């Protein structure tokens, strides 16, 4: 099997617009990208900022939303690993405070989510809003939804012959994190790829945040998402 995912880290295959590609130039050489079509990019900017570049295009945007608390813990882990520290509580508390105040990279978190949530309601053909917890609990259903959104739904034949399972298996965390490239490689910013592969467990925050911290984030999120139709 020779899928590019098996010999490259996902970061290389799907460059981040504002980091890998455009950080230093308005005219990066996109011909160096994988020759696959369609082209795949990623971004961490909120929708209204992305929209400046894509507003007249029918290109598709898929948003992946994760629980605030898991996202925060995940951030903490990668910061600690990058600093070669074990789970440093002082750093966790700093990240927590920044997160709650909204003054954090690409934050506020709630505005980020809401920008894509609203865009998906207003323009469901261009923006698909996906939830990480739903992807974990119902991978087949979410995979089919994604395929339909991208205009390449699975055929009945493909559903019968196990295509979905093969795809899910290849993309599974145990499979990806065991690949040589992801064990030993480094990204352009010096972070070892292995640092990006951790547990992928919904609710892992409970092992790290105190109940008070969890409650505070829940309160903030409930308040900010009130009347949006989005709940966690």
């Amino acid at each position, binding site marked *: 099997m020779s899928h590019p995912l098996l010999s490259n880290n996902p970061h290389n295959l*799907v460059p981040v617009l504002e980091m890998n590609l455009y950080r230093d130039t308005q005219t990066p050489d996109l011909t160096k990208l994988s020759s696959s079509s369609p082209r*795949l990019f990623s971004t961490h900017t909120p929708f209204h900022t992305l929209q400046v*570049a*894509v507003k007249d*295009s029918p290109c598709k945007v898929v948003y992946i939303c994760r629980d605030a608390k898991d996202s925060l813990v995940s951030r903490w882990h990668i910061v600690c690993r990058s600093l070669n520290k074990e789970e440093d509580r002082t750093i966790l508390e*700093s990240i927590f405070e920044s997160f709650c105040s909204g003054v954090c990279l690409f934050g506020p978190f709630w505005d980020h989510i809401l920008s894509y949530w609203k865009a998906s309601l207003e323009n469901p053909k261009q923006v698909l809003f996906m939830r990480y917890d739903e992807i974990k609990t119902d991978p087949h259903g*979410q995979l089919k939804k994604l395929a339909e959104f991208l205009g390449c739904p699975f055929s009945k034949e493909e559903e019968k012959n196990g295509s979905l399972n093969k795809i*899910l298996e290849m993309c599974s965390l145990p499979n990806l994190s065991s690949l040589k490239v992801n064990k030993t490689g480094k990204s*352009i910013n010096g972070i070892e790829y292995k640092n990006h592969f951790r547990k992928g467990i919904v609710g892992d925050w409970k092992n790290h945040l105190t109940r008070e911290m969890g409650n505070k984030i829940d309160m903030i999120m409930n308040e900010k998402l009130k009347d949006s139709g989005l709940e966690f």
Partner: protein
Amino acid sequence: MEKWVNLRHEDLTEETKTLISSLPSEKAYLGRNLCKYQGSWYYYNFLQGVLNFQRGFKPQDTDIIVASYPKSGTCGSRHSLSRFLREQRTLLMMIL
């Protein structure tokens, strides 16, 4: 950590520096400077990347952009789904 975060101030374009000086700014954890642009907080060099792609990125009709808050599962770290490629009539899903 995150070496690319620490792009030296003098490496920013004059235009970006001027813009930053007009934006609200704060210090985040670990003492890094953030500035607020279009309602969202950025390290200075990220802001330059954002400005560059807002101006320079010309999407093709078939492009797919995967958006997420950092460390939301898209960094190749999380299993299950996310992205598709159509390659030789085979649908292949890339990770999340």
